[in-house]
């Protein structure tokens, strides 16, 4: 069953048509990737699905509910979570306080909150070392870990990650993709947006190729990685 079903979604910025009737779906347990060049509409699609950007037409069905016109903070409470492009951790808050903000939408007891924090520290040992550090002073990689940990604090059914590998060293990029795989293995459905097509197709069950606001190609991760068009446009030959 599709956990997320996006149908004919159109988004405009003023007169600019950034998303031209895009349809895709994410099934429970999958890793699905949207790949595409800069400006193809990947981030717009992610932000529109979670209610940060209003859509003009089309529909978004999540977990059987129509969330098309729902404000972002209510969608988040339904168990959708997003690691936004550029991390956007709260710079003035500590690592621990950032993780607390991640749990804002869940009414957890103190004990289960502590257990959640511990499980995040286990997944990201670096965050445990820096728990009382102001987030603005973390390195880019650490901020990415924090943004991922923060998004996991609400126990999302669907986790969306927008360019999680951007600006990271090759070593860290591998680490980020490993973490995404392990989060998925633990039962979280993943929708990923990436410019790093090679690495993301390798871990994806299925993928969609976005080009100037439209989906032009779809298939399993392996199929797309093998397709000539994708190779030429996104995998450097």
């Amino acid at each position: 069953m599709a956990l997320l079903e996006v149908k004919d979604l159109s988004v405009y910025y003023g007169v600019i048509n950034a998303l031209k009737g895009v349809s895709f779906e994410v099934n429970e347990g999958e890793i699905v990737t949207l790949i595409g060049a800069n400006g193809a509409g990947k981030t717009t699609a992610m932000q529109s699905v979670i209610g940060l950007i209003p859509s003009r037409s089309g529909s978004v069905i999540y977990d059987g509910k129509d969330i098309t016109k729902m404000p972002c903070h209510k969608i988040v409470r339904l168990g959708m979570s997003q690691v936004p492009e550029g991390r956007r951790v709260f710079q003035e808050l500590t690592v621990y306080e950032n993780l607390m903000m991640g749990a804002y939408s869940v009414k957890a007891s103190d004990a289960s909150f502590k257990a959640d924090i511990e499980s995040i520290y286990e997944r990201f040992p670096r965050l445990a070392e820096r728990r009382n550090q102001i987030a603005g002073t973390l390195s880019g990689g650490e901020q990415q870990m924090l943004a991922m940990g923060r998004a996991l604090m609400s126990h999302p059914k669907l986790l969306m990650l927008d360019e999680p590998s951007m600006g990271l060293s090759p070593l860290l990029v591998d680490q980020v993709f490993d973490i995404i795989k392990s989060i998925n293995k633990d039962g979280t459905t993943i929708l990923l947006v990436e410019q790093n097509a090679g690495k993301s197709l390798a871990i994806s069950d299925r993928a969609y190729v976005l080009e100037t606001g439209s989906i032009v190609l779809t298939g399993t991760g392996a199929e797309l990685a093998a397709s000539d068009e994708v190779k030429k446009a996104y995998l450097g030959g």
Partner: protein
Amino acid sequence: MEQIITTLINGLSAGGTYAMIALGYTMVYGIAKMLNFAHGDVIMVGAYTIFIFFTMLGNPLIGLLIAVVLCMLLGITIERLAYRPLRGASPLAVLITAIGVSYLLQALAQIVFGADIKRPVFFDFGKISVFGLSIAVSTLITLIASAIIMVVLSLFVKYTRTGRAMIAVSEDRGAAELMGISVNKIIVITFAIGSALAAVAGFFMIWKAPSVSPTLGALPGIKAFAAAVIGGIGSLPGAMLGGILMGIVGAFSNSFEFTAPYTDAIVFAVLILILLVRPSGLLGKKRREKV
């Protein structure tokens, strides 16, 4: 020496009042990203409310409680009717609307209460002697009350769930929404807190100088706004520091015969000097962006 300490205490007391108003400006600026130029007029509405209930009941404290509630409702209503429809509009449109709301409130007050100055005289506790200094009790109470309010507010913002949500919204609205925080709700709470502080400030203002008129909030509003800018607009400790600084500079200026007539000018000259040296205010932060 005694004269200096007395002046300092008077300054701190007046500064506490400025700080309470400045906090309203700075919180709304930090969280709703707008300058609420009607903030001073909320003080005025609070002052009239206190005046009316004081004349009816003879007790200004009941009036203060009602004024706090009424001003919170007023702040929420202004936000809902005037500012929220402009969310996402250009900052200039919001600014001019805020100025419009300010004049609307002043005009309404003039229609309802008349333009004449009302002079409610609350309980006068006279002066007491502290360490050999003679200080008005009202000054002392203002000083202590504003200090308590500032401490409570700081703790609230730092240690409560709602307070942290306020920090999150002020830093990054979109990221805050992604945490499940209703930005609109946090903005409403911010207006409510700021307006409640304005009502309390109004109480202390008319206790010290019993004079209630439709333009009562205009000058203190501008001065407190300046205080918020001196401290670094958007910063809570900055607003407190700016307000207190403004009170102290004003008190010292008032204590000399040759500067007293120019107090307001001197206070604003200090503002200009500070901004020349630190354009983002004393505690204002230059944002660091990390890619």
